[in-house]
């Protein structure tokens, strides 16, 4: 029996296409709220989303959304709003018509579909342009209309596949606010992206996929804890990066050294000892260092650590 706040559960979920394994033995549960789905291109994010939305059937294992398998389950699909990644629409339609037709396909009457379409367009800031043909829209506007068609259904579970793609900085800020507001309303949102900064802006709960498997799942804090089990990378800018590197090359804790454009990246398994030694070197031997940057300041570095 699922816990009341768990909306999605998978058990040994796998999906393959011929010999290509897209999702590999996923066992996880997602709780209510906003969850970021992260991973590089080809990690299995879109396949996982298509399994969640019932577009794909699992090759092995099970997936349950609101306690039931989503594929061909109209009761479950009635609670889903899905914004696909692909930038496609029906030919010759206005944004309003597009949203309205998709509301009709949801089973709404014309009146309800019209009302829902108007409200959804308003919510994504497209009221002024909603009666214009989609072909005249910018990429950002098209993205908003795609999100509007998902929001128009007032779904309990909103799945956004790369929603920030193509949006300008202002549009991104609005999207961050919108997703945040949906989370505060108590809705569940699954947002996929391959840019960690975007996810970090909208949620503290992340699911990291890599090569179809779960790399990490939990809060950002939990993932940061995982870093301690992995080497840290420190980028040092210096006029003489080779001299800096020479000071650390013989250390047992040093796992790797890379040079590039006046800087050296040192990977260490013992960051505390590393920083102590670096301070001592600067003070004692006058090592010329312009800047020190820890690559662990954002989720990008966490992600890179985990996949390496």
């Amino acid at each position: 029996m699922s816990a009341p706040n768990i909306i999605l559960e998978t058990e040994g979920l796998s999906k393959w296409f011929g010999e290509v394994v897209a999702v590999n033995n996923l066992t996880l549960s997602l709780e209510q709220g906003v969850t970021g789905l992260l991973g590089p291109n080809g990690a299995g994010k879109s396949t996982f989303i298509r399994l969640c939305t019932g577009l794909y059937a699992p090759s092995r294992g099970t997936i349950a959304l609101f306690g039931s398998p989503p594929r061909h389950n109209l009761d479950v699909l009635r609670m889903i709003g899905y914004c696909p990644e692909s930038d496609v629409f029906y030919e010759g339609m206005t944004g309003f018509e597009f949203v309205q037709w998709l509301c009709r396909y949801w089973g709404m009457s014309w009146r309800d579909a019209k009302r829902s379409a108007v409200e959804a367009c308003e919510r994504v800031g497209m009221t002024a342009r909603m009666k214009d043909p989609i072909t005249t829209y910018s990429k950002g506007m098209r993205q908003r209309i795609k999100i509007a068609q998902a929001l128009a259904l007032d779904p309990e579970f909103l799945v956004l596949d790369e929603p920030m793609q193509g949006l300008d900085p202002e549009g991104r800020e609005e999207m961050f606010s919108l997703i945040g507001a949906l989370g505060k309303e108590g809705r569940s949102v699954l947002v996929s992206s391959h840019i960690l900064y975007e996810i970090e802006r909208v949620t503290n709960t992340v699911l990291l996929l890599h090569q179809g498997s779960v790399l990490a799942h939990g809060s950002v804090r939990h993932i940061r804890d995982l870093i301690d089990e992995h080497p840290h990378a420190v980028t040092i800018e210096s006029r003489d990066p080779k001299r800096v590197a020479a000071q650390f090359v013989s250390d047992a804790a040093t796992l790797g050294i890379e040079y590039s454009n006046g800087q050296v990246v040192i990977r260490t398994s013992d960051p505390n000892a590393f920083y102590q030694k670096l301070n001592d070197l600067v003070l004692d031997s006058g090592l010329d260092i312009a800047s020190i940057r820890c690559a662990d300041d954002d989720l990008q570095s966490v992600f890179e650590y985990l996949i390496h």
Partner: protein
Amino acid sequence: MTNRGIKEERMLSEKLQKTPAPYGRYVLTACHHTLTILPRRKMTILAGVITAMPISIPILLVMNSSIWDPEGEAVFIRLAQFVYIGALCPLFALLFGTSLIGEDVENQTFPYLFTRPIPRSAWVLGRFLGYVIGTSAMLAGSMAVTFLACTQLSKFPLDGGTLALFGQFAGATLMSLAGYGAVCMFLGALVRHPVVIGILFMFLWQRLAVMVAGYVDFLTVEKYVSAMLPRREGLEDAWHRLISSLGVEPLVVDVGPWPAAFALAGISAGFVFLTAYVVVNREYSAARSASA
């Protein structure tokens, strides 16, 4: 919006979510949607121009009737049989039937639909009905104008008899559109290049099958469409005449118009069912071949 307003909206939304729409509404929505997007497609403009062309033939004949005055009935029957039913019905099925499902797959719009709580079979059925209504309207309109123009030629008065003839050809056109359309819709749902397969089926297989004596031509749509026509003149008869002239009596199994109509209805229903089966069970993806 006030808190009360938000609460009412939410309650309405929850009510909507819990109340599934009847199956028929989904069918009608898909049908209506098809009829809405059909006229907006560039292909429809081309089809409209092609459909209007046969009208010009009886009009030109009427204008030059002082020089050459053919019988109106013969002109109408030839145009109906060879142009409308023989050429335009298969062409429309290729142009529109193959794209009924295939276009949503090729253009990647299917995720919008398949993540809606709509039975996929209702969507397929609605699409097919929309196609039959839309294409029938185009062809029947053109055929009616052609018929009226032919009544201005000699020996083809506008009376009950000629109207019945028009009705028979219009019925055959409708059934032809449905039969060919269902086959093409199925191809669009199943294969990557449905137009190529459709052309091979219509213009190679059907040509070959009708030339072979026996039951092979039962595996065509053309066999039943031809059987529905009040008068026939085509390759089949020419071939049979040639065989007969050699002193061999070929095995020709004729089908009456009503059994032919039922057969076409069965073919249409069968291929709509097969299409629904494919659409329900297949996993369409960005790379169409990935899910094959």
